[in-house]
């Protein structure tokens, strides 16, 4: 039983870490008022970039950095379209998903199916790794999971809610006209937020291909980019809540694997459905229980609305 739980937790930290990393990026963009539906495409690009980088001799960390860079580059294309040129965010996001998925598949064709040349391997922390349940799951993994699960969410929380920079960013997402009037450069903040978010989405892809799956195949992201977007909503646009949400999703994914490995009498396709159904349940059940608390009100007021300075 302990063995089972340890295995599940270890998988959950990896599977959930991918989602968390992407969601932390998406929440930056969404807090600034830009709805980036292209996470799926960015993750695919990041994933293939990581694989290609390590195949050319880079260590895993450098591979993930390259993935971030590629995410940021494509993020700036998206930002230029939706922030500067004010094109339809939903349409551009979907286009980014399609284009990113296609480009990643085209670039990754010759790397498909091979194991990654370098991965984020396990690092045993001397004393803690011997602990019964958490030992192997938490303290025998690559230290990068601490960055993803602890340092990054905390840093982002402080950045968003405890700094001047953060209040500017949130103001831009709530009421860009008021932010503009008080001297915040709306388009510049939005552009930066989208690029930063896209960089994290790229990193999520790199983490997916270098730490979790450790190989590349077409369609590797498998809808995780969309779960990321749901996770942001589920977490109420708050980085720290998203940590819990990501852990929950990771555990559900891990449960599916356990079911397959142990030959539960449920077809694997149904087990694979669980993360998606759970996401829907997570979105529907809370407002069902507390009907007066409308989750939609937690969203930034100007989410998805392009900003025209001249327009009232």
């Amino acid at each position: 039983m302990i063995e089972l739980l340890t295995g599940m937790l270890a998988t959950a930290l990896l599977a959930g870490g991918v989602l968390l990393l992407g969601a932390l990026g998406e929440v930056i963009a969404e807090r600034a008022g830009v709805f980036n539906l292209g996470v799926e495409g960015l993750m695919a690009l990041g994933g293939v970039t990581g694989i290609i980088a390590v195949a050319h001799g880079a260590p895993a960390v450098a591979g993930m950095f390259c993935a971030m860079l590629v995410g940021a580059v494509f993020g700036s294309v998206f930002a230029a379209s939706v922030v500067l040129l004010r094109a339809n965010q939903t349409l551009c996001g979907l286009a980014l998903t399609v284009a990113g998925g296609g480009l990643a598949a085209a670039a990754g064709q010759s790397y498909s199916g091979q194991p990654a040349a370098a991965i984020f391997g396990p690092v045993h922390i001397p004393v803690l790794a011997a602990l019964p349940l958490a030992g192997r799951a938490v303290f025998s993994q690559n230290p990068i999971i601490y960055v993803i699960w602890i340092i990054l969410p905390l840093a982002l929380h402080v950045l968003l809610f405890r700094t001047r920079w953060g209040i500017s960013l949130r103001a831009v997402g709530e009421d860009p006209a008021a932010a503009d009037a008080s001297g915040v450069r709306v388009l510049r903040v939005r552009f930066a937020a989208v690029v930063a978010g896209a960089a994290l989405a790229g990193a999520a892809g790199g983490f997916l291909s270098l730490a979790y799956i450790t190989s590349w195949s077409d369609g590797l992201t498998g809808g995780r980019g969309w779960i990321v977007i749901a996770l942001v909503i589920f977490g109420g646009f708050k980085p720290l809540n998203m940590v819990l949400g990501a852990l929950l999703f990771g555990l559900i994914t891990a449960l599916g694997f356990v079911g397959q490995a142990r030959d539960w009498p449920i077809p694997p396709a149904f087990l694979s459905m669980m993360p998606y159904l759970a996401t829907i349940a997570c979105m529907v059940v809370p407002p069902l229980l507390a009907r007066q608390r409308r989750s939609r009100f937690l969203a930034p007021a100007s989410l998805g609305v392009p900003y025209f300075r001249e327009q009232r």
Partner: protein
Amino acid sequence: MFGGMVFALCGYDPEKLVFDVARASFSNLFGLEDLGLIWSPLILTGLAAAVALRIGLWNIGGEGQFYAGAIAATLVGLHVQAPVGVALVLMGLAGFVAGAAWILVPALARAWLAVDESITTLLLNFVAVLLVTYLCTGPMRDPANAVTAASAHVPYEIPPLLDDLHWGFAVSVALVFAVALLFGRSVWGYEVRVAGANRHAAAYAGMRVRRRIMQVFLLSGGLAGLAGMLEVAGTVHRLEGGISNNFGYLGLMVAALAGASPLAVLPASFLLALLLNAGIVLQSYGVSKYAVLALTGLVLMSAAVGERLAYYRLAPKIPGAS
């Protein structure tokens, strides 16, 4: 908007390819019919997304509803013994109902709990894909077909309009006009448009906004499901994994390009069908499938940007813009 697309297409490809694509699509009946076969499902999935956009909501689940419709139509087709006409009508009904059923939970959650519909509808796509995978590899698998995982051949076929192009195309076009009439000329359509423009104003005016959301969503899901049924009964004749060809997602782009206007779905879906067909032609020139996919995305993005830029050129002519 159109300029943006054409420009992007020319910008990324040598002129010769463009000519070849045009020749392949238009020079003979065969090319045109192929175009029509891509065009008709796009009309329906585009219409499905556009209908939801009329009330200001995003149905990103066209893909899943398409699959649901395809599953239901295949089941009916395989298990019902009836004259062709009756069977086809039953399959169409089953497809429509299954598509509507697939969107039922997101619609209820949206109407009564204000749960974001774009995510819930979208997540059900993955569930539908997995369900089809399960059915095609498990209970519905045709034992006679060892190579591909697919259901048995559905015995009922939609009669052809031309050689390859079937009556489903005519049905799709007719539905566009029917929906356009419904939205443009009926009290119901007026209420939907008001609710889409300002939900609170509509509620104050005594309109039943929630009920309208439900009806619009069910219609939207039903149309996408019908697209799935037509694909099964008209083109593919069985249930298989990739049957939707991303038509559900592409329908969303059709609707966005059409500005959510039902009639504009026709030219918008034609444009996208042309683009997809061009992709197929390009593949025969050795350009990889994935590169074509990437190209489609880039063209769509330039279309979105181009639409905005076109608006810019018009703006100075509007007097009194502060």
